[in-house]
């Protein structure tokens, strides 16, 4: 996780409404109107909150038939937590590089 991504995640979780949205989505995927329902705010404002969460990689949208479901992604939070202790940071960074090396290697092998 680079500093820009880290900032995006921290910005995303800095607002109580967005934290409430995340908490709601940890229970399972939901449609836009269901996400917006508990909040006494304009739909437009909820859309903006969702955009910030999406930019941070904390949610994703998936189409199922005519409906779009929004679901929570925990990975960016786990990565931010990896910055907690110097050894958590150290091993997470190293293992990410190690995994990436093999992912790129397999991609190249599949090309040829």
């Amino acid at each position, binding site marked *: 996780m680079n500093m820009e991504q880290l900032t995006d995640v921290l910005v995303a*979780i800095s607002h109580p409404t967005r*934290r409430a949205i*995340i*908490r709601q989505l*940890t229970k399972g995927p939901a449609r836009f109107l269901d996400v917006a329902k508990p909040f006494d705010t304009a739909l437009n404002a909820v859309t903006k909150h969702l955009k910030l969460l999406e930019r941070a990689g904390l949610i994703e949208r998936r189409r199922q038939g005519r409906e779009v479901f929004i679901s929570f992604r*925990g*990975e960016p*939070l*786990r990565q*931010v*937590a*990896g*910055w*907690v*202790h*110097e*050894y*958590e940071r150290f*091993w*997470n960074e*190293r*293992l*990410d*590089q*190690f*995994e*990436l*090396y*093999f*992912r790129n*290697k*397999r991609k190249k092998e599949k090309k040829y």
Partner: protein
Amino acid sequence: MNSKKTLEFKFERTIPAPPAEVFDAWLNPKIPGNPWNMAEKLLLNPQVDGFFYWLIKGNSHYGRFTEMARPGRIHHTWMSRSTLGEETTVTLTFTEQGEDTLMTLVHSGIPDTEAGRGHEKGWNYFLDLFPKQFGHASRRSL
């Protein structure tokens, strides 16, 4: 008996290669991501009772390999300025998962110090909020 509070960190990654290849790559200083890569100075003897020394950003690290079971398991000790002279341990396991390898790294016995936890205070609130999402890199106070 050691009554000091210590930490244990566990990490998991799915590596797209068979265990023997991942095992060998972890011990090859030329492969990005293993601890020995990009060292300023490295002495590495990866066999049981073999020692390592590596220097990075001015910090020296020492250890002794205590178990080498290719391709499934590596166990070694780990000492650095951050372990305050205490001998911590690192255990790696490599488990075949189809064409991939589930790689697990557990670093145990880390002294629980203020310096090491310097970043922690600001994060506690969301660690508490989303405990279920941190299953892949878990931490334990021992």
